[in-house]
């Protein structure tokens, strides 16, 4: 198919995959610690908005990135507080965070900037150029010129893998996700570890959100994350809750989105291509081909003798 040889498809694939990959890697830390995170979508959206607010007010995209991450972390704290100390249903609280983020960002967008959108003078994060990469056929342009956050994904992926599988903290986090009671009897702070997992998910979902608003653009529009947080969750599950798998799944799902955009107007139904990531995930979770297993205590309430 000629479309696969089109460099634009691969540029789009990378652009579409990056926020999904950050979201999926973030969600992984939360799930590994036993907290189901449907709130990635809401954290992304919150960060996308506040990244613009801070970038514009502080005349610095880096300040925007930090502000976006901070706002997403606040949402993560909300999720943690309800899901762990208050032992609320993780899925429902996650939905609440998503709905709250949708409402708050839409509401603040109108009250702060009116109906004309965010200011056009908002600075965006720099794009890096690696001209020597563009010589590679077909995928060269996709690698040679991208947002700084795209390149940052590579060290983030490596550090995630190392932290999760090669550090004592990673081992402890995983043990909390598998069996918090045994972890507790081994003297670990179950709540502290769960909190660290959820906070990291907030940081990485925050990066994903900032990428959407000030990474590739310099503006925020209502409901900008547009379900990417849910796709990130799918990628995470499809990738069996492992850093490499989640990133690979994010690339596959990003490719499906890019392909559907490229297919627009060609007569091939682009919307049907968009159903593929979701259906593939059902297949993976259902164990029809291969099988994914979440951490054993994922989503289960954890009670200690005392609350708070």
């Amino acid at each position, binding site marked *: 198919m000629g479309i696969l040889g089109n460099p634009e498809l691969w540029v789009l694939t990378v652009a579409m995959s990056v926020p999904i990959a950050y979201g999926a890697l973030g969600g992984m830390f939360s799930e590994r610690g036993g907290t189901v995170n449907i709130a990635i979508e809401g954290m992304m959206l919150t960060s996308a908005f506040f990244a613009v607010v801070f970038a514009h007010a502080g005349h610095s995209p880096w300040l925007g990135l930090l502000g976006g991450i901070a706002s997403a972390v606040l949402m993560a704290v909300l999720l943690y507080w309800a899901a762990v100390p208050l032992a609320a249903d993780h899925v429902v609280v996650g939905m609440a965070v998503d709905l709250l983020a949708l409402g708050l960002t839409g509401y603040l967008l109108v009250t702060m900037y009116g109906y004309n959108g965010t200011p056009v003078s908002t600075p965006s994060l720099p794009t890096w150029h690696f001209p020597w990469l563009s010589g590679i056929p077909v995928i060269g342009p996709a690698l040679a010129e991208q947002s700084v956050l795209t390149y940052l994904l590579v060290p983030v992926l490596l550090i995630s893998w190392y932290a999760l599988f090669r550090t004592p903290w990673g081992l402890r986090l995983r043990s909390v996700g598998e069996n918090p009671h045994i972890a507790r009897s081994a003297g670990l702070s179950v709540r502290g570890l769960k909190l660290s997992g959820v906070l990291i998910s907030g940081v990485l979902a925050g990066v994903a959100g900032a990428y959407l608003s000030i990474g590739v653009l310099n503006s925020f529009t209502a409901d900008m994350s547009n379900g990417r947080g849910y796709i990130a969750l799918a990628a995470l599950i499809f990738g069996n809750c492992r850093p490499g798998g989640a990133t690979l799944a994010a690339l596959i799902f990003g490719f499906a989105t890019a392909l559907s955009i490229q297919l627009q107007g060609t007569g091939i139904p682009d919307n049907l291509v968009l159903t593929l990531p979701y259906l593939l995930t*059902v297949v993976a979770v259902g164990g029809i081909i291969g099988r994914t297993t979440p951490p054993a205590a994922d989503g289960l309430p954890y009670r200690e003798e005392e609350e708070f």
Partner: protein
Amino acid sequence: MSHSRVEGFVRPIVLVLLAFLVSSLIMVATHYSPILVFSSLISGAFGNLPNFGSTLVDFIPLAVIGAGLALCFQAGLFNIGAEGQFWMGAFAASIVAVRFAAMPIVLHIALTLLAGTLVGAVYALLPGLLKAYRGAHEVITTMMMSYAAIEFGHYLVESGPLSMPGAIPQGYPFAASASLQPIIATTQLSAAIFIGLGAIVAAAWLLYRTRLGLGIQILGKNPKAARVSGLSVPVLTVLGLVISGAFAGLAGGLQMVGVTHQLFDGFSDQFGFTAIVVALLARNNPWAVIPSGLLFAALDSGAQAMQMSAGIPVELSFVIQGLIVFFVAADRLLDVARRKNWLARLRGPRVPALGVKEVG
């Protein structure tokens, strides 16, 4: 009434009031008067007959899907893909409504709704089977299938077989015998409201008056007890999901024959997602879905009127809804507050009255 039943009534009300309180703080911080917001919301939702009619129009899908979900949640099954089942029901209904012409209206409506119900049920069958026989978590499978259904729906109306040629992505208008006409002028409120109320009664009957309902309740309370007492857990699991899918599909059909009379892209206002909250606030009791559904319908339709009459952004309603969901999910907050005496501390330090010895 026993103490716990009073508590069961009071708790959701306290939680909703708490959400109103926190959202009022957000309004004050952004220079909107909470009194103006809530009075425009109330008058927008209930102020006159057309407004009340519009609220009831939103109430139908929320309550019908919510009643089915209440039953499913009672089984301990968390179907969060009702939105997709609602969409699939709407597609099936619109096929029957468009392709069959000239039929007695009662028959055509019944066939259309039946198609919606069946297809909604079938769409929940796969997650049910995967949960029952492969242990796949229904939250993930129903959610993913829901998003797939929505994309499939965009395909159907934009370029697929149900799409009517033209610039606007939409399906063909329904035959007259598959369209219920408004019963209140200037609103879209049709006799669908009576069918919807009937569905709620059916859900309550199914749950509280049948062997199947009893099995579902036992399964939800204690799967081990269900197994020991000879109930088939896989069969109940599949049925729990399929029944909630059927109610969502019926709601999709009702939306088609009762409100839109045509399939188009934006026919769902996230009803399937909001219905989850409706069921949760109702504590999975199909009867309580009526007040709970009415509250969320009022927040939806009242917000539209509020934006038009008072210029207050409609998104504020999502903030209120999000806070309601949050507090309902985190309802243990009330127990912590009671144990730690937050209310008393808010009133200031406790000073023992003269001559009264403090106990405890």
